[in-house]
């Protein structure tokens, strides 16, 4: 029962996040979807990843969104979409329906026994290549934050002229 409510809440938050016009409101609804996804992960038996998703997905990413929207400014674009909405909706409904038709019957089969591995062993010992990839990604992220924080060249010239 709880899982159904949480899943419906996450999907509802996601729908509102993509349909509202104001970017800041959209970012806040995305944070709600992220928090409910973390709760769903916890109910699924993955507490470690739920905690990380809650802190990173609902916390850090939301702060980044608010910061970027503050710099870039709100710009509601209400013009016609590139792909017609009815066509996009039809394609997505057909694809999701096909996926559900293929996958949902398999879930009625019984679950296998849980292996005795633990998260730390899997992460630190068995997936060293992933660790290396994450280090590179974090470095790229730091560079992107530098780009996000960099000063506007036009403003800098304006300041220098003022001096």
């Amino acid at each position, binding site marked *: 029962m709880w899982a159904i409510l949480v*899943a419906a809440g996450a999907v509802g938050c996601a729908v509102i996040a*993509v349909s509202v016009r104001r970017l800041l409101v959209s970012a806040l609804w995305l944070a709600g979807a992220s928090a409910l996804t973390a709760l769903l992960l916890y109910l699924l038996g993955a507490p470690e990843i739920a905690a990380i998703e809650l802190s990173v997905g609902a916390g850090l990413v939301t702060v*980044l969104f608010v910061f*970027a929207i503050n710099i870039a400014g709100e710009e509601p674009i209400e013009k016609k979409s590139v792909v017609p909405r009815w066509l996009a909706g039809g394609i997505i409904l057909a*694809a999701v329906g096909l996926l559900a038709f293929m996958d*949902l019957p398999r879930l009625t089969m019984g679950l296998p026994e849980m292996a005795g591995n633990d998260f730390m062993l899997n992460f630190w010992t068995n997936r060293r290549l992933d660790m290396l990839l994450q280090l590179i990604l974090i470095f790229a992220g730091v560079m992107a*934050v530098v780009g*996000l924080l960099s000063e506007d060249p036009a403003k800098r010239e304006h300041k220098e002229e003022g001096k």
Partner: protein
Amino acid sequence: MNSIEILPVVIAAVFCLLGIGIYALLVTRNLIKVVVALQIMVKGALLALVAAGRLAGNVDLGQSMALTVIVADTIVAVVGLALAVQIRRHFGTLDLKSIATLRK
């Protein structure tokens, strides 16, 4: 609610989140909204990875893969938002159609 009952609910949520994300990617023209759509798709992928780990009987493997996806997703958001800010400064707009210079 045990795992065998929760799994169909999670898989249905995965399909919905992926569908909403792809639909928003197709119809939106705002660069920051594109990043929001990507984030929603990744939430679905995270749930799918952990659910697949549970189905295979090794939820810890699914969790360790999901952690890599969270890191990659955060970096994608940071790079995407930094690009959006720089594009806004350079072109003065976040509209995808206005900044598509290859069409001209």
